[in-house]
């Protein structure tokens, strides 16, 4: 009656229609591909193909190698924030201060670089360390101050931005454009692929392995899926939340270094403002459940690429940049609405 869902041999012909109980029947090949790649990823790939077709048919420049590199380097920085945001969201949190942390780290990297007599390594290390500290501050406010992550990081979004402006007097700092290490980060390449993209792939790869294959990752999914269950199963969830926000700060610090490298100087605001929106949009578009417990780095990467192509295409087609902001905002809403409709939540009251 209840649990005995034995596989039924009959009615295999309706397998495709009955997608909700795939394991009960022998799946069709198409179905198996869909299962392996994931519905989200297939949708993203189809959307990507459509967007490329439309833009490419309007402007042939789109397909030029140099433009593809432009897209790749353009998404590298927001991509970094998107993948780490994915981890934060899976754990049930949200970090909207990542853009400010990146700005602060950018200024700090250039100022440390200048102050230490053009020692790039110290500039890099300092920026990452500052990012980590910012993340720890976020985590501590959330865990020990019992503040909702959105509110906590909204507050630090403003505060970190203010600190960056204070120490820089609101102006771009230092000049790193002649340092070989910064040049390599901004314009170098390995095997024909820009360093910026390598940094993104490296960070994304590490996060992917962590989420998928380590007990840490499994506990992060558990924490976001049901924190009471995770807690009662003996997981020290406070430590995990602190560590995850520290990680987000650290990756935002790396993003800050890349901003400095690309622009040749430390930027308190320009270059980092609005990155949190892009990061959260990409994560949501990639199917990361905003309630936590669900999501994948690979889907987020695909969504980052889709967003990059869209923005690049709009630029190529001469769309007013103000419209691009409207498009980004709209996309975030659409992505979340699709997600919520798929979850079948009842449309009553303010959603959780």
């Amino acid at each position, binding site marked *: *009656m*209840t*649990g*005995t*869902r*034995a*596989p039924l041999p009959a009615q295999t012909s309706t397998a495709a229609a009955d997608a909700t*109980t795939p*394991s*009960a029947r022998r799946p069709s090949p198409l179905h198996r591909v869909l299962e392996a790649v994931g519905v989200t990823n297939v949708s993203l790939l189809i959307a990507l193909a459509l967007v490329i077709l439309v833009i490419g048919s309007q402007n042939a420049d789109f397909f030029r190698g140099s433009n593809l590199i432009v897209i790749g380097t353009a998404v590298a920085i927001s991509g970094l924030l998107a993948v780490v945001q994915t981890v934060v969201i899976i754990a049930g949190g949200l970090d909207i201060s990542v853009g400010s942390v990146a700005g602060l780290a950018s200024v700090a990297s250039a100022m440390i670089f200048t102050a230490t007599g053009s020692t790039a390594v110290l500039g890099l290390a300092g920026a990452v360390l500052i990012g980590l500290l910012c993340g720890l501050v976020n985590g501590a406010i959330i865990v020990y101050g019992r503040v909702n992550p959105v509110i906590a990081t909204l507050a630090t979004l403003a505060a970190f931005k203010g600190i960056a402006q204070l120490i820089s007097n609101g102006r771009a700092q230092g000049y790193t454009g002649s340092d070989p290490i910064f040049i390599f980060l901004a314009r170098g390449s390995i095997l024909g692929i820009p360093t910026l993209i390598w940094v993104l792939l490296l960070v994304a790869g590490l996060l992917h392995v962590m989420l998928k*294959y*380590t*007990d*840490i990752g*499994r*506990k992060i*999914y*558990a924490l976001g*899926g*049901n924190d*009471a*269950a*995770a*807690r*009662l*199963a*003996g*997981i*020290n969830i*406070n430590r995990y939340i602190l560590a995850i926000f520290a990680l987000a700060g650290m990756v935002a610090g790396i993003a800050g270094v890349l901003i400095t490298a690309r622009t040749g100087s430390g930027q308190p605001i320009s270059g980092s403002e609005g990155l949190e929106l892009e990061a959260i949009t990409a994560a949501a578009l990639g199917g990361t*459940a905003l309630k936590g*417990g*669900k999501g994948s780095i690979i889907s987020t990467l695909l969504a980052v690429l889709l967003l990059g192509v869209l923005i690049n295409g709009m630029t190529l087609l001469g769309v007013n940049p103000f419209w691009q902001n409207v498009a980004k905002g709209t996309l975030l809403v659409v992505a979340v609405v699709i997600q919520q409709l798929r979850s079948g939540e009842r449309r009553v009251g303010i959603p959780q």
Partner: protein
Amino acid sequence: MTTTSTPPTLVAEGIGKSFAGVHALTDVTLEIRPGEVLALMGENGAGKSTLLKILSGDQPPDTGTLRMHGEPVTFSSPADAMAAGVRVIYQEPEIVPHVSVAENVYIGRLPATARRFNRRALRERVRADLERTGFTGAIDPDTLGSRLSAAQRQLIEILRALTSDTAVLAFDEPTSSLSDAETESLFRLIRELRESGVAIVYVSHRMKEIFELADRIAVLRDGRLIGVRPAAETDEEELVRMMVGRDLSSMFQRRHTGAADQPVASTESRRPVLELRGVTSDDVSDVDLVVHAGEVVGLAGLVGAGRSELARAVVGDVPLRGGQVVVNGRPLRLRTPGDAVAAGIGFAPEERKADALLMHRTVRDNLSLAVLDRLSRLRFVRARAERELVDRYVEQLRVRTPSPEQQIRKLSGGNQQKVVLARWLARRPDVLILDEPTRGVDVGAKAEIYAIIDELAASGVALLVISSELPEVLGLSDRIVVMQNGRIAGELDRDEATEERILALAIADHAAEGASR
């Protein structure tokens, strides 16, 4: 006794409802007549609450129709049902915490003039309502919602119903949180309502109340309507038979009951594993309790007696205000549940979905959650070791799932519970605390869970089992500890325990006795 010729107020016809493939209700047809109290009985998980939810518009039925005065009706929300005159009074009604009792009663219907409501008129009106219903002293109209006791909240819900047009009124175990005097008032009120022609549905486990109030008694089992009997033509024994589907005496027999009494029972091998010494938290006071290796201790008591709260304190989920938890002779330092887990305590909480399961993850993910660190090397989860472990426990506990990769929400309640048990078995704990391990579990899986508990005890685990079902407590336990009001009210050995004695301890006025002891 009502005549059968009165046309029913509300008819449920062929109602069916399933959740994630589990049939909660199957083809239930029931007439609810005016001027009559229809009692609804059945074990936990029999489908009573699902039926109430459908009547109240909280959940739509999958199949079947509701007819109100002969006309088919569809309730798509509780507001719809209320507009049609159908109200369900739950044990824990929704109360707005920051407004007064009076506003809570008339919520949504506040007497307003030019959008400003008249506070004083409202207070007077509620005062009159209280007087009319005989609850004058029970509640002050000015108290804030957040300060009300469970009984008072229920009273608000009753007042809401009485002050609007109500044709069908359903009560879900209303007396479980009421005092004797309050219960008396409630019964008087129910009888008055019956006289005035309201159709009343009364869900309860308490036989005495049922025979005191009901005109007809309907019994549900595993989501089906087993039968409806006029109260005058049936007795307790028949109803129990209908509810459990077999004679009470044949249920819940433990095979290894001897484990604690036989060779192992020699006093020195009855090693205390879990010892609570004066455990005190916000909700429990001064609890002393010992569970020995291989022993099943049942923790009985009424809802709200502090049993789950005690468990939460023992596993470090709520802070201890005093006392000690000792495992294998070592006092624990409990800061988080992680400390209890590390000391060898496993805990399967009462609210399976809310507190134990990762509903969107697989059987495998759920099963291995508490042993991930043991399965990992250099933090990488060893996939093969995990698969072997999961396969072993799925087979051993007979978890019915097409594959370990199945999402757990697609399993039935019983199989979900087995996965929760497997999570802890995999950790090989010394102490296992099970809070209502068979709630929402069908009869077949129940028997299997009893067998698992039995075998665990035989293998030397110390078990503390919280259960509200007395036959279950009696069948499973070597020893039964009864709680009341956050304190231990008494202890009964397996041989001397009966339902009556447990209940006597659970409800007797022990406050005075405890003080004199």
